[in-house]
């Protein structure tokens, strides 16, 4: 079953922060985050495997709450280059390790 992402879209000014959430109705083994710019391929950001795990990549970080079956992506001090659609991809526990089910995406637009 497809994870639910929120919000559907967000508009920021440069330097502002944003949080994108991803929730699943199933117990999760892993959560992947990808960013896709218009007309381009999705690009990997990070994977979270364990409950409570947090990762960071530049000013983009994420957390995984295993008990709540949800993950959040944090974008701090946003830059114009952060604009794009963010997808979470989840693997329910017991499913094949890379059989990702993607959410519908969150459109992020950063304005100057």
């Amino acid at each position, binding site marked *: 079953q497809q994870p639910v992402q929120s919000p559907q879209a967000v508009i920021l000014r440069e330097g502002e922060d944003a949080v994108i959430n991803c929730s699943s109705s199933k117990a999760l083994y892993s959560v992947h985050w990808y960013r896709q710019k218009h007309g381009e*391929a999705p690009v990997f950001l990070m994977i979270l495997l364990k409950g409570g795990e947090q990762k960071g990549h530049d000013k983009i970080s994420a957390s995984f709450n295993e008990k709540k079956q949800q993950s959040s992506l944090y974008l701090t001090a946003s830059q114009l280059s952060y604009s794009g659609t963010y*997808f979470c991809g989840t693997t329910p526990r017991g499913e094949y390790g890379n059989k*990702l089910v993607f959410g519908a995406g969150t459109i992020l637009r950063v304005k100057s």
Partner: protein
Amino acid sequence: DTAVSQTPKYLVTQMGNDKSIKCEQNLGHDTMYWYKQDSKKFLKIMFSYNNKELIINETVPNRFSPKSPDKAHLNLHINSLELGDSAVYFCASSQEVSASRTYEQYFGPGTRLTVT
């Protein structure tokens, strides 16, 4: 060097035709995938091959047939194309996966298929 490449980039064809999309990766990965992204940007896995063996086969019409001649290549053949097949098809690859391992996926540039 392009890590994951697809050809063609654009494909415009008529209903009922048969077409193929080719994918190649030079990352040394063992696992390759086909995804379909529809007009609403919904990204859905179709197939996955691990060392030339089909490991994921989602609910896809049997008009779609993947073929992996070797672990660096994964092609997608589509028979009797329908209007609803219009979408962007992405190939991806990753390190070898198992039931207990997961790795980041590297996507190709996509093939935009338009069926008229």
